[in-house]
Each structure stands twice: as structure tokens, then as C-alpha cells.
């Protein structure tokens, strides 16, 4: 089983979510993160002084899937989350040794 972590534009989240649902990915976990990369945040002004918070708010999606799903997931994200502009984000793939479903105690493939 592989864990896929995708850091995407927050604005693309629902598109990605829907596309993944369509290809049969029912489970995922997401949270808001701050991204530092090539794209930079726009500056702010307060009482005459300018400043910059530095980061861009992004959404991180995590899902653990069986090996045979990895390619499809990656392709889907690439297709939907892409705008072609700097800041589209990245996908990381890692190995997962074991998965357990808390409700039933099912393990590994059964738990996905």
C-alpha cells in the first residue's frame, strides 16, 4: 500500500475531490497547510507600513491506496489540479507497511 500526499491549491480542492471520488477513491484526509515555494503571497498594508506574510495557504490531501491505484490517482490529480501557473503543488508517494481499520480491526488491503 502507498500513501499519496498531494499539496494542491486550496482553490482546486473540490475539483480534485470530485475527480477522485469519480475514480472510486472514497477515503481521504485533508488539512490546511502553509506553503513556501516559488509562488509568493501578495503584500499587505497596515497603517502605512507594508508587509508580507510569506506563505500561501494550501490544502494537503492524504490518502493511502493499494499499489494498483497509485497511477490512476496521480494522473487524476495531475489532470485536475493543474493550472500551468507556478504554485500548482506536488505529489509525494511513500510506502505504508500496515493499515488497520479501527472499527473492525481489519488489516491492510481489507482496511482500505
Amino acid at each position: 500500500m502507498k500513501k499519496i500526499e498531494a499539496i494542491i491549491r486550496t482553490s482546486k480542492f473540490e475539483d480534485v475531490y470530485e475527480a477522485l471520488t469519480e475514480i472510486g477513491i472514497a477515503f481521504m484526509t485533508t488539512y490546511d497547510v502553509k506553503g513556501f515555494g516559488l509562488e509568493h503571497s501578495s503584500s499587505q498594508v497596515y497603517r502605512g507600513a507594508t508587509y508580507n506574510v510569506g506563505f500561501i495557504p494550501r490544502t494537503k490531501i492524504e490518502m493511502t491506496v493499494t499499489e494498483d491505484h497509485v497511477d490512476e490517482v496521480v494522473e487524476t490529480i495531475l489532470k485536475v489540479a493543474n493550472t500551468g501557473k507556478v504554485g500548482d503543488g506536488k505529489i509525494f508517494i511513500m510506502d505504508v507497511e500496515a493499515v488497520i481499520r479501527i472499527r473492525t480491526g481489519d488489516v491492510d488491503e481489507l482496511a482500505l
Partner: protein
Amino acid sequence: MSQELFVTNNVWMMVSIFLVFVMHLGFATLESGLARSKNTVNVLFKNSMIPAIGLITYALWGFSMMYPGESFAGGFFGFSNFGIPLPEGGETSAYNEGYTFWTDFLFQGMFAATAATIVSGAVAERIKLSAFIIFSILFVGLCYPIVGMWKWGGGFLNTLSIPFYDFAGSTLVHSVGGWGALAGIMLLGSRIGKYVDGKIKPIPGHSIPLATIGVFILWLGWFGFNGGSVLSADPGAVSRVLVMTSLAAAAGAIGGCLFSLIMFKASDITMVLNGILAGLVGITAGADQMGVTDSIIIGLVAGALVVLAVAFFDRIRIDDPVGALSVHLVCGIWGTLAVGIFGALAGIDQLISQLIGIGAIGVFSFVFAFAVWYVLKLTIGIRVSAREEIEGLDIHEHKMHAYPDFNGTGFEMSLDEKEMMIASNSRNHKEKEKPVVAE
């Protein structure tokens, strides 16, 4: 009249000024509470500038356009002079038994800005700041005093055989604002993400406490709006008006509560709040003509109407974030009609006069506002870019966030995400560009 009475009357009118003034705080909090946090600075900015703009334009020319005095008043337009020079005896009861010239100006000036405030909420979350400011100056500075003169300044609506009756401005203030708002919304189109694939997607306001504070303050302010419109401290008349105003507000709350419970199966606090305002707008035209039962009925009906109207405007894709149309336009009309149906003036003839007034003022205000919005749209544009709208007007128009400690950037919230995704769908971009009115 004794000097003592004059002084007391004037104190009462000054208290009314304060109350009408706090309505601007009420609108500011209500409207910002019902908008999203990414547009909060923008809403508050507009609502802070409006009283300033209102008072200054009213001082420069508005007051003398609305109350030009007998010699300068025409049926449809009057004007005496620029500025507000103190007339002879303006500080004594020779000016009026109820108030000095200054009190008169300030009370009316505080009223004036209200009409623009109503528009502010309705066009919130996508209007361009510069366009709104220009619109406000013209709307408060020209439209409001012109139609105001028709009735309160002694114009043609006041000289009908059975004069049009609008005690404190259900039509002259609230509907006027409502028509301006309707024209604006029609030309602006709905917020991105509000109507998608033929479905209504709610965009909840970001702070119910702010909205609630706003409504309580508006109710408070209405004591001056209606109570001050007696134009003296006459104990019977004023206290009666206060009671009827309160009963209509209370009945409006109950009407809004029950009706939304029945229709939507939810105890929706925004409907209770809108219901209170609906009751208040509804009683405003006839607050001095109604009895206890009349007031309660007017309020109940207004409370129900506002719920229906919110649903109705959503169905026809008129996107009004704060329910300004439902409250001020619909219930403004209802309240004005109610003068012909309930209370001391009830009668078919009065009802006709009411319809004439509603119609005349409605047509003028709507056309005026539509024309201004339209010219603005063709020139500087009235709507921010999709990106600005998605990321929030605060960061783009003001380079600032309303709550920097809570969300560093103001657009990392779940709901925004939703619309941002929606915005990226082509079907939607189309929708955004298809306002109700063909251009």
C-alpha cells in the same frame, strides 16, 4: 408655545438624532456579520464612509434640495441654496416649535445616509469600492433628496387630494434604498458560487453575534427613526409610536421565527433577525396611525413576508447577501400599503394614493439607480475580478484582513474553497457573466 416646551422638544429630537445615528452602527455590524470574513473590512469601510458622505453632501446641497422651503419647492424638484446657512431665528422656536434649524438638519442628515447603507449590504462581497462610493454620493446626494422632497419637502405627493402618507419613511427611505439595491444586484450579478447548476448554494455570514448586535442596535435606532419623526416630544404621539414600533418588531420576530420553522424546518436566527427588521420597516409608514392590533398584524405579516421574499429572490437568482431587498423593499412596500388597510387612514382612496407614491418613487429611484450603476459599469466597472472576489475584497481592495490572527490570509476557509473550485469551472464563469438583466 412656551420656551420650556421648545427646549424639551429639541432635547427629544436630539436624542432621536443619536438613535438614528447608531443605526449606522447597526447596519455596519449586521451587514458585516452576514458577509464572509474575507470581505469584512470592505463592508465596514463602506459603512464607515457612508455617514460621512451622507452628512457632507447633505450639508453641501442635499438638505436644501429636500427641504427647499415653500418658495423654492416645486412639485418634482426644488432647491434653495448651497450649504446650510442658518436662517433667521433658526436657533429659536421661530424656526419650528419642535427643534432648531441645526437639529432639523442633523436629524434629516442622519436619515439621508440610511438609503445608501441599505444598498451597501445588498451589493456586498463583489462590488468595486470606487464604484460604490460614487454611487453613494449620487444616490444620497441626488436621488434621496429629490424623492424625499416629493412628500416631506412639500412636493406633489403631499399635495394629492388625499396625500400619500409615509410617516417615517417605509417608502421614502427604505424602499428607495431597496430599489437602488435591486438595480445594483441586477447589473452586478450574483456572487460566484451562489447559484450553481440551478441549485442555490448558501453562503453563510461569518459572524452571527455581529449580525445580532446589528439588529438590536437597529431596533434601538428605530425608536429615534419613528419616534423622532413625530418632530416634537408630544407625549401621547411619541410614546404611542414607540409602542407600535416595538410591537411590530416583536411580532416580526415571531412571524419570522414561526414561518421559517414551518417552511424550512429550522430555527433560523437570521430569519428572526430579518423578521424584527421587517416588522420595523413595516410599521414605519404608519406608526402614528396604527393601534395595538394593527401593529401586531403588520409585524406578523412582515415577518412572514421577509421569509417568503428571501426564498423568492433566491429562486429568481437575485443574490442579496443580507436580505436587504426582502426587508427594506418588500416590507417597505407592505408598510406603505398597510396605511391604506389598517389604522386611522384605512380606506380605498388612501390605498390608491399609497400606490401612486410607491409607484412614482419606485420608478424614479430604480431608474435613477439603474442609470448610475449602468454608467459606472460601462466606465470604471462595478464588479471586482473573479480572483479578487474569490480571495476576498479585503486583501485586494484594502490589502488587509479583518481578523489577521485567526486566518493569516483570509481565504483559507472551507467555504471559500468551495467557491474557488466552482469559479474554476467554466460553466460558472459563464453564470457570473450573465446578470439578470441583458445589457
